[in-house]
């Protein structure tokens, strides 16, 4: 069973929040939806879980009870303890008694939250809070897991923990869609979809995205065209439309995901400036 959003557009008043975007994810795979604030990540994820009304397009997703959805905000109740959060959500999915207790303990153990079971969610660190949100989304063992920025703003060690939990869910057969602002996280996913201003900048496997890059990147201490250059430490990377265009005294580099995403964003902005 493949889950998908096809050619979706979403409007909020005059704003086109999502402009003809598609995604597809298979069981046992992780798709990372990458972009900054306002890229359309949340709208796309909400479209997938049936919480955003499409102007055009269609969605193939299981019914709500077969989806584990973790929204970008909270995802747990701050005035309830860790155990109460799990019991409350478990109840919604009709879990009770030993089945609930054993599933709850297993998930909290994986999330290293076993010793915090009686703490209020509000007393947890940001990273622990996200791990609790993830455990709640996983409680009913859904075939489709949709995680909205599980890792933004949390520390690298908690992020590794979360990534391990995401990997575990995929290894057990779940289809996972997660949004992120971190490109290194997207590189670790099997598939990625880069959004900018509600539109698709790139999609596919990491290799697909890198291979489809059209142009060349040079590294230099003094960029020729400042508008097409960005910092990589003390040096700059600069974009050239063709390999032949790279100046003789500049060294060409193999573009990485950061180079590709920055360049595609610049080209898109340039295009929309020309259009207006």
């Amino acid at each position, binding site marked *: 069973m493949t889950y998908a959003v096809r050619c979706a557009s979403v409007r909020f008043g005059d704003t086109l929040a999502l402009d003809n975007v598609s995604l597809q994810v298979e069981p046992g795979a992780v798709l990372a939806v990458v972009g900054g604030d306002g890229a359309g990540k949340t709208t796309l994820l909400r479209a997938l879980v049936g919480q955003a009304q499409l102007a055009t397009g269609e969605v193939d997703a299981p019914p709500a009870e077969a989806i584990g959805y973790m929204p970008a905000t909270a995802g747990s109740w701050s005035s309830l303890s860790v155990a109460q959060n799990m019991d409350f959500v478990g109840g919604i999915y009709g879990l009770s008694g030993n089945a609930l207790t054993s599933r709850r303990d297993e998930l909290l153990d994986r999330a290293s939250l076993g010793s915090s079971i009686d703490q209020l969610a509000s007393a947890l660190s940001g990273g622990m809070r996200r791990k609790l949100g993830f455990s709640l989304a996983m409680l009913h063992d859904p075939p489709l897991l949709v995680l909205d920025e599980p890792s*933004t703003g949390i520390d690298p060690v908690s992020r590794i923990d979360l990534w391990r939990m995401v*990997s*575990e869910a995929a*290894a057990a057969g779940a289809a996972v869609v997660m949004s992120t602002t971190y*490109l290194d996280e997207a590189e670790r996913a099997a598939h990625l979809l880069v959004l900018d201003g509600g539109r698709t900048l790139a999609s596919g496997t990491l290799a697909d995205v890198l291979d489809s890059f059209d142009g060349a990147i040079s590294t230099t201490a003094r960029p020729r065209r400042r508008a097409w250059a960005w910092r990589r430490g003390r040096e700059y990377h600069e974009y050239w439309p063709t390999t032949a265009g790279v100046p003789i005294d500049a060294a060409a580099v193999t573009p990485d995901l950061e180079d590709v995403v920055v360049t595609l964003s610049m080209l898109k902005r340039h295009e929309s400036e020309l259009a207006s």
Partner: protein
Amino acid sequence: MTTTSASEGNPTTLLAADRVGRKFKDFTAVDDVTLRVGPGEVVGLLGANGAGKTTLIRMLLGLLATTVGEVELLGGPPDRQLRRRLGYVPQGLGLYRDLTVAENLAFSAQAYETAVPELPESLRPVADRLIADLPLGLQRQLAFLSALAHSPEVLVLDEPTSGVDALARAALWDTIHEQAEAGVGVLVTTHNMAEAEQCDRLLLMSHARLVAQGSQTDIIGSTTAIAIRTNDWARAFAVLNQAGQPVMLSGRDVRVADADADQVRAVLADAGMSAEVFGVPATIEERMMVLARGPKAP
């Protein structure tokens, strides 16, 4: 006379800590940390939550007393007067959400008794918008502009690029490097390990102490990871996970940080799996995870 100061009388040290420690009752938040930031340097401060970064920064800014050791900001113990020569962008940005862009700038310029800076092209169209209505990337640009208006000699930036897109991140790093090239010393914390390459030098804190410093290679030290390539990653993952290895997915490979290749091979062989198993350099996150976990059980 043998007085020592945190900057050891070095006039080119902008920010210094000398064997600084801080306890909260019985809890040691910062233990024996020594660091310096000189003019034109971009120094990255890394560490997991609870490693002590925030406590250290608050002491460096003079907002929290040290339990032991000394800190120096621009050659003296940090006080109100010296702090006026510092630019600080906190994680929460420190903007007034119910004021407009222009009002925020005017307010902060007045506080520092400096001229109101001119808005860059990107912020001009939103001069009269409330902060609460702005995208995060623009809010971050404004917080920078506001912190730089009084031409500070030292910049302290807490998670300056969190949550913004690649282009906005590139613009913020342009600004940071421009400042450094003009002689400003920069101390920056980040959770985005891809940004480590933007810094001239890195400091890694774990469990209240400074545990490594230098380049990315210096930080990773001797930590390695094992990569496993098979045609059934999910099964390899399950088998290694079952065996208690800290395993994770990386594309279509599986990785285990700080593991023994032979042990990994043995676990896979026991499960009747054939796989390519090879050592790879660890990432900074993996190094941090290994440190956070503490010493391995024998």
